[in-house]
């Protein structure tokens, strides 16, 4: 009993620390790779660490409607992402096995809600525009991931995370087409989950100047940026755990390395897609996601029928 608790705390801490340590590295890779695609030299890979440190060291300026909520939003943004690290296997098994799909969905949605909170708390015109876009994205995006998790839960017959994250999305005994459909759907929407071009609409620098984050600077911005970097890793983690979990049970360094390799592949994919696309308009994006949500519902029905 005590031993179990200790292992889960230990694993959770390892995941959190690794996430915090490696997320800026992933960001660095993204930037370097983008630069190479754009024929540029690009910043050094460790630049993202410097950026966080620099922002953390800056003066904390209080502007906007309600500074308390702004601070809360900044902290909550990073906290919610870090909590997810306790629920997904990052090469060393799931740290907190008590969680289930519903808890995971809550935490994932919280990350998006924090963006809305941040925008409302600063209360300027441009951040409100960002909020309205964020909400539209939230409403259409969240169902996709929920359905993907539900398909796995239906296939595996359990809402608990351990069975869900064991590749059961592609069927327990027989092959499930629903899982394959969901893989395609989540992959197609992946840029939006990690807020990259062409779906970084809620932040669109050239349109609404970072939207909800417009009024943030210094340490608060550092936390948002950090959360954003972690988001890329965490969503990749969820994707890997749900759709390509194989190899996790390998001996310690192998399984662990394999996990990070898969994440790195996703990061590269995200970068290439982001670098080769123009940003969509919010109505175009919403229409695109609505079609995908409809298809996903179909997949859920398929899964329930056992296909």
């Amino acid at each position, binding site marked *: 009993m005590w031993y179990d608790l200790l292992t889960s705390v230990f694993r959770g801490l390892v995941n959190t620390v690794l996430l915090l340590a490696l997320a800026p590295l992933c960001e660095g890779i993204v930037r370097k790779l983008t630069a*190479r*695609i*754009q*024929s*540029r*030299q690009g910043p050094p890979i460790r630049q993202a660490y410097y950026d966080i440190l620099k922002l953390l060291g800056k003066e904390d300026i209080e502007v906007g409607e309600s500074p308390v909520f702004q601070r809360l939003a900044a902290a909550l943004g990073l906290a919610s992402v870090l909590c997810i690290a306790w629920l997904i296997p990052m090469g060393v098994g799931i740290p907190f096995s008590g969680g289930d799909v519903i808890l995971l969905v809550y935490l994932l949605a919280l990350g998006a809600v924090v963006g809305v909170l941040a925008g409302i708390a600063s209360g300027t015109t441009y951040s409100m525009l960002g909020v309205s876009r964020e909400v539209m994205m939230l409403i259409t995006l969240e169902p996709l991931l929920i359905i993907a998790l539900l398909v796995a839960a239906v296939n595996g017959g359990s809402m608990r995370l351990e069975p869900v994250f064991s590749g059961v999305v592609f069927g327990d005994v027989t092959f499930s087409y629903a899982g394959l459909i969901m893989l395609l759907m989540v992959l197609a929407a992946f840029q939006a989950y990690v807020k990259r071009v062409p779906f970084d609409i809620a932040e669109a620098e050239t349109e609404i100047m970072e939207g909800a984050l417009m009024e943030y600077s210094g340490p608060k911005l550092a936390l948002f940026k950090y959360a954003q970097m972690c988001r890329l890793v965490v969503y990749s983690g969820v994707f890997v755990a749900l759709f390509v979990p194989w190899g996790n049970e390998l001996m310690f360094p192998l399984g662990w390395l394999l996990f990070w390799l898969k994440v790195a592949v996703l990061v590269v994919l995200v970068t*290439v897609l982001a*670098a*080769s*696309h123009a940003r969509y308009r919010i109505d175009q994006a919403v229409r695109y996601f609505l079609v995908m949500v409809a298809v996903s519902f179909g997949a859920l029905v398929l899964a329930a029928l056992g296909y």
Partner: protein
Amino acid sequence: MSLAAKIKEVLICLRAGRVTLPYPFEPATVPKAFRGRPIFDVERCVGCAGCANNCPAREILVEDVCQEVRILKYLGRRCTYCGRCADLCPENAITMSNEFETATDEISDVGQTLELFMGTCQRCGRCFTSPTPLEELKLKGYRIDDLMNERWVFRSKPFLNEEKTVDDIDIELD
């Protein structure tokens, strides 16, 4: 989606490779004809003030402090490096160098002050033969710019006398 177009675009990008230079860690080169900061050669300058009369940015000032001494001051603050001064200099005393990294904390670093000893003939300003009537400014006698406040006043006087303040021009300083 237009996958073929996307792939073509990515190929264009990758074929180009990295093109940005490691500047400022390695110096950037400029072509020979580059117009950088003008350099005034005090040895060659005859003090005709042709450059000062035709500087579009009014960055070259001239003040006759006495009969024999003319001060030519190039300020370099808002000089646009158009190179007209070098074009018009009859003695080729001005060269457009290839210096372009002229950012400085001390504005006088980019400027230059020439102290010229004038013979009797040159101070009339007539030694500047303008290429066309468009460069002609009909300036004769002694020229007085406001060197103290670094302002182009553009006045000339037939005789140099004691008072050389520019009292009729109200220079505004906050």
